[in-house]
């Protein structure tokens, strides 16, 4: 029995028209990449980030070309006749030297390594932990959610600098400790967003459908819900990188992060304390690089968010500065 006579014809699938192949659907990733490629701010940000990565990777090369290691004090030619640091543009020292005669360009290149490693590794750890904690809290709800959500609230309201001082005084400052401290204070930002998204996603009918197929909780969380959270997580993670870099610079500036003489942009700034206007190149160059890096990551994060969901306007409006341009 048939409700209407057109059904038989309508249920058969028309053969694929070769001319229609041209509008074959694109994957979401292709769409995002395509939108990013038309975004000038995104392109510039990516170029800046790639250059800084190249600087970090090529740091030993720069050291080899100039002949100065990052911690070499260059007793013979690093300072002028009066023992004063060399200004930028001096022979062999493009960005000048500091008060100990160390090459600022080489130190900045090595500092880029620290900043990027801390930014990326701390963000990766924070993202993984945040996603797992947020998913469990949001999906299971109940007492587990109460405990995890309260923990995240506590972490977010913690005076992290004081906490870092205590940790460093106990364990001594080191790169891994810096990364762990930053990851610990960053995961809650991602965890809270993921929790909220998971809370709304778990009520969707596709979750019920997965349940009716016999899928377990783990499968529903990581195979069904997680792909729906990728967009906000990518955006947040991109925006977390500059935060982590600034966090590292802050800790190093206070002497709680990367210990001297290993260079980092933060402790180079701290080294420049008290030099005033005379030796401006001590602090101007680390500052410029720090600013460029964080600005590039922030703008890229903005662009990625716009590309992932062009319809949504500024989900994190409260947390974000307005995009210049």
């Amino acid at each position, binding site marked *: 029995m048939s409700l209407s006579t057109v059904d038989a014809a309508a249920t*058969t699938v028309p053969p694929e028209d070769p001319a229609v192949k041209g509008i074959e*659907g694109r994957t979401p990733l292709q769409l995002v990449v395509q939108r990013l490629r038309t975004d000038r701010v995104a392109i510039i940000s990516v170029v800046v980030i790639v250059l800084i990565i190249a600087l970090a990777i090529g740091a030993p090369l720069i050291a080899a070309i100039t002949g100065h290691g990052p911690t070499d004090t260059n007793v013979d030619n690093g300072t002028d006749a009066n023992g004063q640091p060399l200004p930028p543009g001096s022979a062999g020292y493009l960005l000048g030297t500091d008060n100990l005669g160390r090459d600022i360009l080489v130190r900045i290149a090595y500092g880029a390594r620290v900043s990027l490693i801390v930014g990326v590794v701390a963000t990766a750890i924070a993202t993984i932990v945040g996603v797992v904690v947020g998913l469990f809290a949001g999906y299971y709800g109940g007492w587990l959610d109460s405990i995890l959500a309260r923990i995240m609230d506590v972490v977010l309201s913690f005076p992290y600098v004081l906490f870092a001082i205590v940790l460093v005084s106990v364990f001594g400052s080191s790169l891994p400790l810096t990364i762990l401290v930053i990851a610990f204070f960053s995961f809650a930002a991602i965890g809270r967003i993921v929790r909220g998204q998971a809370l709304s996603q778990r009520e969707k009918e596709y979750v019920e*459908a997965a349940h*009716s*197929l*016999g899928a377990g909780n783990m499968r529903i969380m990581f195979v069904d819900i997680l792909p*729906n959270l990728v967009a906000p997580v990518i955006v947040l993670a991109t925006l977390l990188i500059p935060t982590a870099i600034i966090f590292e610079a802050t800790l190093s500036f206070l002497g709680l992060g990367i210990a001297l003489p290993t260079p980092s942009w933060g402790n180079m700034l701290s080294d420049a304390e008290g030099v005033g206007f005379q030796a401006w190149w001590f602090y101007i160059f680390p500052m410029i690089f720090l600013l460029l890096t964080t600005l590039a990551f922030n703008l890229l994060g903005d662009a990625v968010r716009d590309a992932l969901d062009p319809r949504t306007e500024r989900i994190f409006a409260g947390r974000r500065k307005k995009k210049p341009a």
Partner: protein
Amino acid sequence: MPDTAVDGDVLLNADEIVKHFPIKEGIFFKHQVGSVKAVDGVSLKVRRGETLGLVGETGCGKSTLARCIMRLFPLTSGHLTFDGADLSKLSRSQMRPYRRGMQMIFQDPYGSLNSRRRVGSIIGDPLAIHNIASGDERKKRVQGLMEVVGLNPEHYNRFPAEFSGGQRQRIGVARALALHPKLIVCDEPVSALDVSIQAQIINLLEDLQGEFGLTYVFIAHDLAVVQHVSDRVAVMYLGKIVEVADVKDLYSTPRHPYTNALLSASVVADPDKARVRDRIILTGDVPSPINPPSGCRFHTRCPKAQAICSTEEPLLQSAAGDPAGHMTACHFPVAEGEKLASGKATILHAVEGFLAEAPS
């Protein structure tokens, strides 16, 4: 409540199914302040190979009953037997092997498909979950399923967003078919679709029933659709079944006043017939399932209600002269040819009469 008299091979037996959702209050220490009595003592038998239609207003507990049958959440009380196995007390992981025998098609073809996953992986999900097939074997079976439901197997790698509503519902059907279940619970499978597409999906479901020997529990609020697909129909009101009968009996001699009202409200395609027939227009809203009326739940809106209706709950039983399978939960079942009073309908008739007499 006695069992609905059903002979033959019973595939699914629901006995006094109750599902109450607790209402909790309090910020730190939650305590229960009441419950939504979504399904409140429903007994049903579904024969192997038949289609049982389930109709009722929005909010009467149809979908909750469907999810009880699928055991998507624990039952408050009652027994559920499927193919001889008692499912009523099984935990989520204990339920898993039984899910191969029963599947569900959802109402919303948009929300029920994960928009971030490819169609091939959505349809292949049941095969992956139950470790039935993997790799190329899974892909082959998924493409076979896509062909069965009338989708182009070449669209294996597309995302749900690239399909129309009707095609999406076909994806849902293919997913439900993947495990070769015995029972498919269709929760309003066509109400979100255009009328022309509805017919396609319904015909597809009917073809599949013949091909795979499926049993359907078919939920809808469209009485015409239910009449078309069902062998038997159960009418639900506020968490209870008020009438069950073979589809012919129910549509020709509805006994329960609520069934009468529902049938009189359905659209008749012939305007001349539509004008002369009696419409029973129910006044008021459906009472809250948090605090359902005493006695017969329909008595607050029933044109035939008497004192006993508000005190004593009527049993679901055969009225005099009805076949054994026709059961009604009413103290005063409607006799054949009886006209039910309805205040608003009278006014409507008066207006229509006035318009008819007016010189044109």
